[in-house]
């Protein structure tokens, strides 16, 4: 029951991320997405969770819902931009694409041969849609920061895919993955700052001096 609720929320959040133009709401969206995904991870393995599992999940939640968003917001401030004007793909179209993609991911999740003990296909679908959202943001948005957000969203999706498919990676690996993501986003932020200093803007499509 709860998980269905979470999934529904998740779909909504993702659609919102497809459609929104304000970068701060995008960040909030990704934070919320992360939170919901963690919740999904919790509910998808019914309570069979050791204490280090709990700690790990809480750490993850902390990093993904609090630390990274905060970092992003600060990068956003220093970059001094609020919203994504004229994206490569307009917002209505994006929303439309979002709907299509949602449908596709639900269908795809239904197609997959599930191992026993796997969660509800909808969970998988939720993971997929989050990933696709991330990819879409990277492809269809101009600002470097929204691409970073996209990367984060994608990571969220990938991250929850494992528990959804009843795959329990060893803790150390999970930690390493989390660390990587953290450092990755951190460095992205740093580079965004440098780009900001160098170019006075962070429009990726104007960032195409290197070409053949």
């Amino acid at each position, binding site marked *: 029951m709860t998980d269905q609720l979470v999934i529904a929320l998740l779909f909504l959040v993702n659609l919102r991320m497809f459609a929104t133009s304000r970068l701060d709401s995008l960040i909030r969206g990704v934070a919320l997405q992360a939170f919901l995904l963690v919740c999904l991870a919790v509910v998808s393995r019914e309570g069979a969770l050791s204490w280090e599992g709990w700690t790990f999940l809480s750490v993850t939640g902390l990093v993904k819902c609090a630390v990274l968003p905060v970092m992003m917001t600060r990068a956003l401030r220093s970059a001094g931009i609020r919203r994504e004007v004229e994206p490569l793909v307009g917002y209505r179209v994006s929303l439309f694409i979002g709907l299509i993609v949602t449908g596709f991911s639900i269908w795809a999740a239904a197609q997959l041969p599930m191992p026993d003990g796997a969660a509800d296909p909808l969970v998988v679908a939720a993971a997929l849609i989050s990933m696709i959202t991330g*990819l879409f943001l*990277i492809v269809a948005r101009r600002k470097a920061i929204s691409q970073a957000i996209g990367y984060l969203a994608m990571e969220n999706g990938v991250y929850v895919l494992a528990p959804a498919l009843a795959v329990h990676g060893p803790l150390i690996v999970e930690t390493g993955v989390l660390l990587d993501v953290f450092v990755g986003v951190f460095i992205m932020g740093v580079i965004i700052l440098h780009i900001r200093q160098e170019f006075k803007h962070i429009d990726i499509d104007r960032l195409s001096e290197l070409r053949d």
Partner: protein
Amino acid sequence: MAFFLLLSLLMYLLSGLASLAMGRHPAWGTRIVPFGSAAASLCALIPVLYVLAGGTPVDLRAAWSLPVGSFHLHLDLLSAWFALPVILVSPIVSFYGTGYLRRHDRPRETDACGFFLQLLTGGMLFVLLASDGLLFLLAWEIMSMSAFFLVVFEHEEHEVQRAGWIYLVATHLGTAFLFAMFVLLGSRCGSFDFGDFDGLGGVADVVFVLAVVGFGAKAGFFGLHVWLPEAHPAAPSHVSGLMSGVMIKTGIYGLLRVMVLANDWPAWWGWVLIGIGIASGLGGVIYALVQHDLKRLLAYSSVENIGIICLGLGMSVFGVHSVGPVALFAMAGALLHVLNHAVFKSCLFLGAGAVIQAVGTREIDLLGGVQKRMPRTAALFLLACAAVCGLPPLNGFVGEFLIYLASYWSVLPQGLPSVNPRVGGFVVISTLALIGGLAAMCFTKVYGAVFLGEPRSGCGSSATDPGRDMSVPVTVLAALCAVFGLGGSLLMLLVASVAARIHPLAMAAPDMAPLREASAVYLNVTLAALVLAAAVYGLWRLRDRLLAGRVVRTGPTWGCGYPHGTPRMQYTGSSFAQPIIAAFRSLLRSELGGDWPAGYLPGRSSFMTHTPGLFMHRFYTPLFAAFARVAVRMRRIQQGGTHVYVFYVVLALVAVLVWSLL
């Protein structure tokens, strides 16, 4: 015997390295290369003569740690025969080279030149010895690459760089076909050892085509010849001599090596070879005729001679299906022409080099009257010219004589079912005759325009014969032209065993009796030559005797009533070639230019012709331009947008998923 071969290869390498190391040494610098080359040649000469004299083939296998291929050297009659020109010409050339390069002041390039010259010569020998696919390619590339570094000797000039690039591309694209050929053979025969290639793994026809293209690029078959007229003018003259005289023959060698491994020679191989022969022979000589650049002209004449060799090979393919001595004669003729062309062509290049160095230009139409200033060089060059025209009693005649003879035999009625031999012989005779006439025209043009008459420009008014270091090698080569010509019978005896064993049918029972008769026949030619010489001498004396008591005055050339003749009014090489340009307009597509005399009192007028290479101009240049255009169009893929790049990733992922799940 194998020891000597290894030793000679090693000597080439070591002397090359030594010349790199101590090239500036006052005493040694100039000596290392030629003497090293001579010593190596002597070492190689022993086993080569041993094999040619009927000894057992020299075979050497050694362990080699590479994943594919094995270290297998093999010196049989075929490779021994092709080794002859290498051994004979390379030392002479390198002796000349030291003198030639001393006159350029480029110490570093000179050292490199010495090194790569040794590498080239050793590489050629290595190619002839290698009896394993990988080893062969190794040797082949070493040879080609060192030739490249020799070509770019004067690398500041843009033409030289371009020439080097063209040569490199030509040789490498040719080699790509050889890669394919050896991979095919290896996959069919299970190993890369030539010993296992018997019957060419049942894919003889494919292999033959690949070999024709791959080796033809090196040999300079017409159409694949574009690098010769570029590289030879660019390279130092002795290098051009070596490349044009000897290196391009390795292409013929490779082709023959492959053909020998076949069980049978289908008739269409013969037609292919004769077709190549006609194209190369006629195309080569016609293009040679219309050139203004002395060395470019010589390069085209090499294409022509390769064509003659191909005609011989084609005839011998037909000979396999015919009776009588056709196959034997044709093959022997081709092989002899390989040797003889090596001699007279290198002689021509060395002589041309001496002239060019003395007068400082390669433009034929700027020269004239060089004979008065460089009489010795002129005489030697004349000899070589007569040889390249195939005039008796010089060595150019020997090979052509045999090929002609084979063709005459093959048109005789023999009651064979197939008409291929008779028609083939008929075609070969007509082509050879045309080539001969045009070649005579071409080289009378060269000699007349460069050496005879009055100087057409100030070029080289102070030219003199070069010193002994350069003139002796040329003399030796010219002498070889005469000796090989007069001793044609002996050459035929020498080549008999080789030619007789090459044929797939004759392998078992080589029959070289006809060649013995032919060599006896050729004695008549020698005899006639001697009689001729006697007659010339006698008539000359007679003339002197008759003129003895008479008034012999000198005066200006009769100008036919035009009193103010100037040297620039002489018939130039261009005007000499004009009828050809007119006759073959459609083929040559020469560009005629200059301003024609106009009005009643015309001012200064001029005329120029330029004949671009057909394939270069109409095929390769457009082709490469097209490639460049496509490349530019492809650039759009890498247009700089990150999201586009990520989109590529996504697309690839989707594509792969779809392909793997559907």
